[in-house]
């Protein structure tokens, strides 16, 4: 008898009946996973064969999944030219012996087609070759417009099942779309799926806008905009309604905004008379609090995931370095001590690393260090890398690279071990990526 599959629903988008989870006995892994991401980057990616899904929408869905895995670093899609069999019934177990000789550790089968009610029915099964068992299986019923999301949700389910880590494919990225000559770049906020699909523009391009960031808990983004007041200001924009407002009633330029992990506060820099300090605003009460008291430049603040600390960069000691202080302000400890200037620190959602931009004599690197400043590792280096943002699972980063001159920036994705780097497709030049939380 075949293992059953689970139907699931997700945040109103995916409609279906939830039933008991049908997972067969695992072949390995006392902790219900097949793979150990920690403690370092010295692993071999798990070969996964994503077979073409059956049904009218099948090939599109399995194509998106396969493309996701080709950038996943931890999973490696098996070359379809080496597939030993053509799957005719995705509900039936594949011929495990022949997949074993094709070096596939897992095989994914599935189908996707409109049901009688017009809604798209998609299901997948993940088969583990060594044990000859089904490791996961689910069905999703949804509006056909959500087909891409279903493919990302399935990608996450498989990624999580195999690695034991959270997924990151069902996410979006807000970024700055850049067009026109370098001297008069037109910058628009835009949003896309993590794989570059479904680009939508959020601002018109009339005002210069930079550094968008996602709320962890709502459909809001915060960013810096020129043109809305005498000074450039931090704004809050609802991406569903398009409503926007200035954050706080501050006298000078506000910039470098970021949400607190609970989404209730925005932290930012305020510049007055050439001095930049850190402030926060409570979104509900509008109350503002000053957090740093320097006569230097304090900027690029980012909360720890538990909300108890803030990392930021400052040139209070002469050159730009990273500092950590309590979220209420107070005594800041310098944590960066390597050669060069450190900036744009961002705390990993897992809490284990702080990512940063590091400027040497002529290069800009993206790196990570532990929150106490130890274990610094450079992931990529060159001219000119900047502005890391974390995937919600803390295993990947995006950043932008701008070769300078009349050219312009593109967005790249890299894993936390620095093993592989991929350019994220965008319609034009693109910078300032900010990765959303998982949508489902």
């Amino acid at each position, binding site marked *: 008898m075949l293992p059953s599959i689970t139907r699931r629903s997700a945040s109103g988008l995916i409609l279906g009946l939830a039933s008991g989870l049908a997972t067969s006995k695992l072949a390995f892994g006392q902790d219900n996973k097949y793979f150990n991401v920690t403690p370092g980057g010295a692993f071999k990616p798990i070969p996964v064969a994503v077979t073409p899904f059956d049904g009218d929408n099948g090939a599109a869905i399995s194509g998106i999944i396969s493309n996701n895995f080709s950038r996943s670093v931890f999973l490696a899609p098996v070359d379809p030219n080496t597939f030993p069999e053509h799957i005719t019934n995705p509900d039936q177990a594949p011929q495990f012996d022949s997949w074993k000789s094709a070096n596939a550790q897992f095989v994914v089968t599935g189908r996707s087609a409109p049901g009688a009610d017009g809604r798209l029915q998609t299901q997948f099964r993940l088969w583990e070759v060594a044990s000859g068992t089904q490791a996961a299986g689910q069905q999703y019923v949804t509006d056909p417009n959500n087909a891409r999301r279903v493919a990302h949700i399935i990608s996450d389910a498989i990624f999580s099942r195999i690695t034991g880590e959270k997924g990151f494919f069902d996410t979006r990225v807000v970024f700055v779309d850049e067009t026109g000559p370098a*001297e008069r770049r037109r910058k628009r906020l835009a949003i896309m799926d993590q794989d570059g699909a479904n680009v939508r523009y959020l601002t018109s391009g009339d005002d210069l806008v930079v550094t968008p960031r996602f709320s962890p808990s709502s459909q809001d983004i915060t960013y810096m905009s020129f043109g809305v007041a005498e000074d*450039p200001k931090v704004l809050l924009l609802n991406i569903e309604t398009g409503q926007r407002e200035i954050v706080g009633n501050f006298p000078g330029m506000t910039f470098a905004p970021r949400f607190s992990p609970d989404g209730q506060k925005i932290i930012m820099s305020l510049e007055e008379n*050439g001095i930049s300090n850190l402030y926060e605003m409570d979104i509900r009460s509008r109350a503002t609090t000053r957090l740093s008291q320097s006569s230097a430049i304090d900027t690029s603040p980012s909360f720890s995931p538990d909300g108890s600390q803030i990392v930021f960069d400052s040139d209070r000691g002469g050159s*730009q370095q990273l500092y950590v202080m309590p979220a209420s302000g107070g005594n800041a400890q310098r944590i960066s001590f390597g050669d060069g200037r450190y900036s744009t620190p961002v705390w990993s959602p897992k809490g284990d690393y702080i990512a940063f931009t590091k400027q040497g004599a002529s290069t800009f690197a993206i790196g990570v260090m532990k929150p106490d400043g130890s274990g610094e590792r450079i992931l990529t280096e060159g001219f000119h890398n900047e502005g890391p943002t974390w995937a919600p699972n803390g295993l990947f980063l995006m950043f932008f690279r701008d070769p300078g001159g009349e050219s312009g920036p593109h967005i790249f994705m890299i894993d936390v071990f620095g093993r592989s780097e991929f350019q994220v497709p965008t319609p034009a030049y693109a910078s300032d990526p900010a990765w959303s939380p998982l949508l489902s």
Partner: protein
Amino acid sequence: MSLLKRAGFLKLAVLGFALAMAACAQTPPPNASGSAPIPGSFQDFAVNVGDRVFFDTDSTELTPTSQATLDKQAAWLQRYSQYNFTIEGHADERGTREYNFALGARRSETVKDYLVARGISPARIRTISYGKERPVATCNDISCWSQNRRAVTVLGGSQS
């Protein structure tokens, strides 16, 4: 040598400014026939005074050249007191975006402080930082970066 070079950039920058002014809709275009600028005009300020000063990397210090330019600006602005103006602070591309907004602000404040110390009323002065978002030169070497690390005095409308 380096002084000569810098003077060359200044001339180029001034020319760029004059062209930009010609394209500006708010102001009557300057006489394009090559005759001397009318004293007290935008063009007079750009050509005969110099609208910008330059900074070293990650620095807000005013060099002797910059101070000389600002002394001329102060004298001109005192003579033509009908103008309000904006000091735009800029940074080159060799810094991160957020830090460069703060650095540009520091540069515009430095110039403002200098002009105020030379007797210009702070009420006439607005400052703004564009960070590295508005380079004037976009080649990828030191000659361009040094032109982008600047503070530009932009004349606004007459005081009402």
